[in-house]
């Protein structure tokens, strides 16, 4: 019991602190903190599948994208939509719902999409699985970019109601809670058993396909929810937000923190976000005891170097794949 409180309490507390600090800083920094919260939600959602199954997925940003577009399009005022996106499906064009229902729908859409994709793809593993999930991302991006019935295509979708930091933090906490509950459930344990030894897990009566599919679907639903949070954080979206860059950054955050634990996912997302934000400031001069001004472009180089170094020197990530705890187990 005490262990569960610690393991769940530490990440949730960190999320709450991030939201708390976001209220105490300037407007520009508040955005950075809110962005860090959303990144945390996406990375934890990714962890639910990649961490527990050991199968890498390059496709999760598709589920984030579907959640984001649905939550975005449904919360924009129908009169605006009639003007900016006349080609929408009737139901998308004429509905108008609040933020919280839109998040629930985003999660549902992410889950359904993941289930549909997973039904065939979860038979694969290893590299073919990686490439196939990447192909799903390619299709999602391509369709969102050109299909006028589902969104504003290459245009920016704007005028989406923005949520406060506490809504974002609550949403992120829900993702962490769901991830933890799944991890401690028999299904989570079965999926991790298939990761450790597929043959032994199979011999013990576990269907690898079914457990992977379940993990993938839950992970997709959480990613959809995270996408909904993302769109309500930014207030606007374009398809380019949901492609290679986000895929790479979220995967790198996960590996950086440690693929094997929620604590690693949360820590990875928050630390990389913090470094990113600090370096962004430093390109416009910060005071750290002295005036520090970095040339433009150092941010990306440093982020890349930090991520590469940590992954190379410590492939198991900052946390070594352990959950938060006082003793090293």
């Amino acid at each position, binding site marked *: 019991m005490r262990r569960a409180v610690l393991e769940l309490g530490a990440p949730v507390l960190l999320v709450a602190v991030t939201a708390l600090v976001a209220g105490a800083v300037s407007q520009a920094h508040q955005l950075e903190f809110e962005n860090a919260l959303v990144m945390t939600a996406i990375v934890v959602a990714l962890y639910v599948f*990649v961490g527990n199954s*050991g199968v*890498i997925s390059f496709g999760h940003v598709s589920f984030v994208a579907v959640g984001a577009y649905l939550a975005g399009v449904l919360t924009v005022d129908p009169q605006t939509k009639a003007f900016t996106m006349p080609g929408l499906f009737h139901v998308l064009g004429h509905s108008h719902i609040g933020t919280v229902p839109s998040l629930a729908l985003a999660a549902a859409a992410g889950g359904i999409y993941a289930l549909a994709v997973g039904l*065939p*793809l979860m*038979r*694969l*593993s*290893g*590299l*073919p699985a*990686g*490439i*196939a999930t*990447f*192909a*799903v991302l*390619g*299709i999602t991006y*391509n*369709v969102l*970019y*050109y299909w006028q019935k589902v969104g504003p295509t290459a245009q920016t979708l704007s005028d989406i109601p923005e949520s406060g930091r506490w809504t974002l933090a609550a949403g992120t906490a829900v993702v962490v809670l769901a991830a933890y509950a799944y991890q401690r459930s028999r299904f989570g344990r079965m999926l991790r058993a298939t990761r450790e030894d*597929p*043959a032994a897990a*199979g011999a013990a009566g576990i269907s*690898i396909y079914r457990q992977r599919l379940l993990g993938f679907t839950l992970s997709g639903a959480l990613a959809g929810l995270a996408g909904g949070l993302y769109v309500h954080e930014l207030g606007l979206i374009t398809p380019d937000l949901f492609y*290679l860059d986000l895929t*790479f950054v979220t*995967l*790198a955050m996960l*590996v950086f923190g440690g*693929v094997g634990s929620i604590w690693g996912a949360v820590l990875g997302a928050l630390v990389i976000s913090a470094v990113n934000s600090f370096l962004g400031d430093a390109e416009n001069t910060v005071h750290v005891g002295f005036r520090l001004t970095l*040339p433009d*472009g*150092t941010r*990306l*180089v440093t*982020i*890349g*170097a930090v*991520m*590469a170094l940590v*992954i*190379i*020197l410590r*492939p*198991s990530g900052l946390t070594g794949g352990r959950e938060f705890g006082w003793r090293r187990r």
Partner: protein
Amino acid sequence: VNWGQAIADAISLGALYGLVAVGIGLVFGVMRLINFAYGELITAGAYVLAYTSGWPAPLAILMCVAAVIALALAQERIAFRPLRRQGASPAAMLVATFAVSFLLQAIYLLAFGSRGQIVGTLGGLNTAFTIDGVDIRWIALVSTVTGAALLLATGALLNRTTIGLHVRAAAQDFRTARILGVRANRVIGLSFVVAGVLAAAVSVLYTVSNPLVQPQMGVPITIFALVGVVVGGLDRLWSAALGGFAVGFVYGMFGDLLSSQQSVYLPSVVYGAVILVLLVRPAGLFAPLRARQVERV
């Protein structure tokens, strides 16, 4: 529609992607590592060409090859060897190559700017000659011939030399090969050198038709080739090469024949086909029918 030219262009593009596929497949064979930063080798070569545009072509190409080999060896020595020593998981290795790719792109952006540089080294090859009324650009011929020659040379190196035998042994079973006296670092080093030479060749040939060099130019090349490699079958070099060729060929044909209006959903169709191939034949389209299946329990 100019079929002759479309086919010539498609074949030359296929030859280029075949080279990239072999470069990726060679390193994968020995290290079980998909090097996502392979495209950045090509970009590096292209930048060298851009900055040596005024030099005599052979000298510029020599510089390009030397620089790309150096970068390939640096990637192996600095990034991938420590990972291999620690027995990192394949996922961590793959993400590490992502990180290296990201880092190199950021360095290119910082060093050379986002506006892009122009390569003029072999610009003369863009002129066309005519056979039976069909215009064929010289570069299409040069790419095809160079690609085929390099593939044959790589095959000869692997099949006719002792070190090539070592590479093949290591690709078959790395641990057993080491126990039998194959020196791991030499074999891996060699595969990176050969991969570097192939990448440099792609830099030279690719920039003739696409002279604008930008920090991210390597990414789509890597992705397309990778798709080709996996669809063709990773376990053998020739099936990887064939997969790369097929992707390049199809891409080249559609690029020439379809108008931009018609081709907007082309990526979806291609990716859909990729998924289908992987579901039906996870070991790859050109893998032998009785090939050992990819881990499926």
